[in-house]
């Protein structure tokens, strides 16, 4: 198990216990390939931040190991951390420092030469729109501006791996949108690990997900696999056509045995399938009915947060396993 291959991050039987009183993480096996955008999901206290701290070498594993870029991460592995950009949940900054001071200090800690540091510092301040406040004390900046500064600090060493812990927490919708766009842009060149409570964020930007529940990894795989675990049986269709025709089509659909809920509201058709129904054939019947009634389809979507539903299903299933969890590692 010592061979790490070319993966960016690998953990093996990673376990963390605090003073034999609390098991924060138990037997975590992860393997993150280059270019992956991994969403770390889990409720409060699930072990997300502990896992991140173990990856960064801030905590020592009780058993197991973490390898980053094929090398074991330890408290003194400064060389490995030079390839990582990290944003904590609640970024803290030195008292009295300005954004320029802070970025310069961070650059020094990464061992960047003065010329490189100064060039990147200016470019990053411009990129995150902090030029106007670059001389102000950080304490006087808003949460959104401080979040932008954290982003700049995490990028100053041009890292290959980015670990962002709750990057959109406390941001207004505009700042959150900018952050997600930035994640999408960065994901083209870098590997990212995002811890988030906001499942819609994960849904939007991540390619893979790891779901933690009470320190245990209950799912690790692609986001598609996670969504695939949820039965899709609830749809909404936006329609175009005469109101009378839409009502007639809805009435026809109500008579089909695959549907248990059929409702029309302002040219929006809500459909809920029975448990046994195959969604493709059921929807094919719907489309044919709509065509017969000369109703056009504007859009179709599944209802509810798929990732959220899948996450909740996973946690619920893990809870319901009881003692059998001992014999089942991760997903079944």
């Amino acid at each position, binding site marked *: 198990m010592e061979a790490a291959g070319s993966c960016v991050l690998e953990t093996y039987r990673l376990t963390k216990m605090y003073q034999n009183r609390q098991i924060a993480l138990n037997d975590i096996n992860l393997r993150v390939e280059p270019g992956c955008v991994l969403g770390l999901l889990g409720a409060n206290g699930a072990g997300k931040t502990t896992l991140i701290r173990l990856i960064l070498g801030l*905590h020592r594993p009780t058993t197991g190991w973490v390898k980053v870029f094929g090398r074991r991460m330890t408290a003194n592995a*400064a060389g490995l951390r030079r390839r990582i950009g990290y944003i904590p949940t609640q970024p*803290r900054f030195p008292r009295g420092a300005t954004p320029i001071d802070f970025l310069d200090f961070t650059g020094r800690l*990464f061992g960047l030469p003065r010329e490189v540091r100064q060039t990147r510092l200016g470019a990053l301040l411009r990129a995150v729109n902090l030029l106007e406040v670059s001389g102000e004390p950080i304490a006087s900046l808003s949460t959104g501006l401080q979040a932008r500064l954290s982003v700049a600090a995490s990028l100053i060493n041009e890292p290959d791996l980015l670990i962002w812990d709750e990057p959109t927490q406390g941001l207004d919708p505009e700042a959150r949108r900018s952050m997600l766009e930035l994640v999408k842009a960065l994901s083209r060149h870098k590997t990212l690990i995002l811890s988030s409570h906001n499942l819609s964020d994960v849904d939007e930007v991540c390619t893979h997900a790891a779901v933690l529940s009470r320190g245990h990894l209950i799912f690790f795989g692609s986001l598609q696999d996670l969504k695939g675990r949820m039965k899709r049986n609830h749809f909404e269709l936006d329609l175009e056509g005469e109101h009378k025709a839409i009502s007639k089509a809805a009435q026809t659909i109500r008579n089909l045995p695959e549907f248990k809920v059929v409702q029309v509201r302002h040219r929006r058709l809500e459909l809920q399938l029975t448990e046994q129904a195959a969604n493709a054939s059921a929807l094919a019947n719907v489309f044919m009915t709509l065509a017969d009634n000369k109703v056009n389809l504007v859009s179709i979507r599944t209802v509810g947060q798929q990732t959220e539903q899948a996450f909740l299903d996973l946690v619920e299933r893990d809870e319901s396993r009881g003692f059998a969890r001992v014999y089942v590692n991760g997903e079944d």
Partner: protein
Amino acid sequence: MPFWTVLRGDIRQTVRSWMYLLGMGTYAALGLGLVLHRAAMYRQAGLSQSAAALLGELLFMALVSGATWAVFLSAGAISGERQLLADAILCRGVSRYQYYAGKWMARVVLVSASFLFCGAAIAGIGLCLLHYDVRADGVGVALLWLASVFAAVVTLGVSVSALSESTLFSVVVVWLAVHGLGVLFTMLQLEECNPIRLCDRFSRAMREGMAFEELARSLACYAGATLLIGLVGAIGFARRDI
């Protein structure tokens, strides 16, 4: 470079701290006041004032009050930054050893150099104004010895600070340890390690000069303790969860 960044940042931060400014200001004012008082007695009243006796008193004053000041200054070196450590410093490209060494060296150099500079300045003024009965090499040795004692105290402070979560706890532990060890050494009559006894001996040494063997033995004793405590702190810090 990360080591120098930590060292430079810590020196700058400590020099600006109120604790440092208050301690150095108080020591300089008291020392200067004492020298001027004795100089007035010598010049105005014609009472002969021994520079060696005065420097001995200053040495004692520096040792007793300075030890507490050094404890306050060093025991929060790392625990005082606990909030920043994980999120802004150790998550970057700096190892635990580099960070610890940077903090340790910064505090040792700052405290020792401050006492050396301040002590040398007061001694220089005293030598000009008072009855000249000391040897320059004796004064140098006394100040060097004082710096080595402070280096050991500061190292203990930084080590405990690296291993504890709270600055208050570190201050209490280090203060009790420093003064407890002083009492213990006095009771055990350990000449090399008893700072109060050494104060008396250094007053004499300032007048008569000092044997190099004695100096070497004393410095080796404190340097050994400093290194040992420093290493324990560094290893303990590297094994801690931050």
